[in-house]
């Protein structure tokens, strides 16, 4: 018994683990305990196919057709007169370049909206350098999983960003959306308002008695693919079980570096789940919902305690950090940064 008390089977991370089969079998195993007795098969949960969101690299753009290279091969989509594209700002679809990573919202085979090279930097500012240069450069720490990022803010966007992020100094949080370049992010719009507290010290959540009232309401945001497959439909869940997932609450050595696992439970109390669990995320603004698997740890969402104002004011706190494809699939616009969301547990 004593040797089993130290059970540690490694990081629950779909990307790191060499046996992702383990995660796919969990619904079967759960059904073995709680399933029905009449012998009907409640098998592996079938992941949702992205109906309206398509992710890939641009192979060719012509006035009426765009050709993408996706995980499922080559795909051609028709461009209509109503198709709009975003590449930092609203651009005509012809301005897309070969090799751009794009997310397309389509209706059957016609592209509706295209986002190219969308990037986002969410985390703690480690260094800020604006001495004399027309461009402000920040070094942003996005958490232990994603590492560090260089963010450059030009003069024009700087004013707009400083309205909502007045403190561009080390130790404070930042969340900006912009254009991805090789090695840095060109920040263009702020994604939210800057929290008044320092990174790593979010306000304490209210006490919850009884059971958590599901559905949980809050904000849903998106993150860049990083090392995930670009077309992955899933979310990074902020409250993974600390005992069996990677919770590294070691004291940081460098100043201003914040370990989100040590920052507490964050602003919203979410039930503990594991990688592979399925949740139903509902976009209150677009009235769409989907059942998505938890694919990674979204602990950095716990540092923020913001509201989304896309359609009315949501409750405080980030409840889901979706992949880009999942965000667009649920009807969100990447340049908005968030939508009001509701989360329920899907067995």
């Amino acid at each position, binding site marked *: *018994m004593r*040797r*089993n*008390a*130290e*059970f540690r*089977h490694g990081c*629950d991370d779909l*990307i790191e683990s060499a046996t*992702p089969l383990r995660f*796919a*079998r*969990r619904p*079967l*195993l*759960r059904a*073995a*305990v*709680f*399933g029905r007795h009449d012998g009907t*098969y409640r098998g592996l949960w*079938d*992941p949702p196919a992205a109906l309206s969101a398509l992710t890939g*690299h641009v192979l060719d753009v012509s006035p009426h057709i765009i050709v993408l*290279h996706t*995980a499922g091969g080559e795909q051609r989509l028709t461009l209509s007169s109503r198709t709009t594209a975003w590449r930092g700002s609203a651009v005509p679809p012809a301005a897309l370049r*070969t*090799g*751009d990573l794009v997310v397309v919202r389509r209706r059957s085979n016609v592209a509706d909206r295209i986002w190219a*090279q969308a990037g986002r930097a969410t985390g703690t500012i480690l260094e800020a350098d604006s001495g004399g240069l027309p461009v402000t450069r920040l070094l942003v720490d996005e958490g232990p999983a994603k*590492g*560090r*990022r*260089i963010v450059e803010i030009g003069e024009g966007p700087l004013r707009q960003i400083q309205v909502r992020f007045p403190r561009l100094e080390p130790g404070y949080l930042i969340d900006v959306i912009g254009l991805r*370049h*090789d090695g840095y992010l060109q920040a263009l719009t702020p994604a939210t308002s800057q929290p008044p*507290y*320092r990174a*790593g*010290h979010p306000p304490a959540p209210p*006490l*919850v008695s009884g*059971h*958590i009232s599901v559905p949980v309401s809050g904000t849903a945001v998106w993150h*860049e693919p*990083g*090392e*995930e497959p670009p077309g992955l439909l899933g979310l990074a869940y902020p409250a993974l*079980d*600390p*005992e*069996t997932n990677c919770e590294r609450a070691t004291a940081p050595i460098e100043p201003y570096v914040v370990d989100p696992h040590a920052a507490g439970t964050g602003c919203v109390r979410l*039930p*503990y*789940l594991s*990688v*592979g669990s399925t949740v139903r995320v509902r976009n209150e603004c677009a009235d769409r919902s989907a059942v998505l*698997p938890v*694919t990674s740890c979204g602990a950095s969402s716990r540092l923020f305690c913001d509201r989304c104002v896309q359609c009315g004011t949501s409750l405080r706190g980030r409840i889901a950090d979706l992949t880009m494809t999942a965000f667009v699939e649920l009807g969100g616009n990447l340049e908005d940064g968030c939508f009001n969301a509701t989360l329920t*547990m899907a067995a």
Partner: protein
Amino acid sequence: MSVAAVHLFGEAGGNALTAARAVQIPVLAVLLLGGCAAKVRRAVSANSVEAGIGPTAMFPLGLRRPMAVALFAGEFFLGVGLAVTAGRFGAGLPAMAIRSATALLFAMAVGALHVLRGRRPAAGCGCFGDLSDMPVGWRTMARAVLLCAAAVAAIGVPALHKPASATQALVVLAAVAAEFLVLAALSPEVGEIMVRLGYSEPCELRRLPVSRTLAALRASAPWRRYRHYLVSTDPIDVWREGCWRYVVFPGLLASRRVEVVFAVYLKPRRAPVRAGVLDPTAEKHVPAVFLPAHAFPAAAVPPGAASPNVVPGARGDTAVPPPRRPLPATLQVFPVPRTFRRRWHSADL
């Protein structure tokens, strides 16, 4: 006789009034030091001096920190000063100065709370640190007014001395108790303390180490029933969903390799346990979403594409993440015929 009675009554009444005024000094000292300690505790835990104190939000950004520090220092020194000058040491001018400063502090507090209520109705006063997060109401303002009056009443009280008789000691104690009762009635923090004392977390939010789960499992009836079929008592998978934690062991049942899965409820004592058995050969193909990037076919990125998100290391040097381990050849996407053999059943407690 009547003259003597009036004289005695007058003296007793005067004594009672003086006693009531004298009692304010320790009460005020305790409140000031307690409030300062609670605020310091919150500042330490939030790593920010001006974090929870409501009234500092009314000042411009640059002044908030100095005002918060001034408040901490003022409360601390006035509390200590009141305690020190209560006796014969420092009686006279120093005592009067400190008590006047205390009265001034509470008067400023009344004004600050009033302004805070108007400008930021949702902000808490932060008077007692974490406990004072609720919006400023009439109770908090009344308490501040009462404390200001108490400080004013304490000015000019002669040096405190030990009570002369048992009855006087009882009177003093009763006065202190009555004052604390009145203050508690006016303090929303008392309700907050009661809530925190009686709080128990729902099981979805409870953190419980895996060792406790395994101990509960080994003491349960399903474990005793299925223990003999287990190949190994080391679990091959442990995960949690909400209030249940699942533990999976490899097993051998009727000469077939099976997986025995136990579900343990997350309760500290007498946790219910449920069990199930699964034949691992019977499954559909693995959903593609659970495979990492290099398992996808045609993974070659077309020429000219932006390089994948290169993570810069410290100080800007680009560090490419280490190459992934190749997948074992057996873990591919493969279809399994729909007619499968599978036996499972569920067992209750």
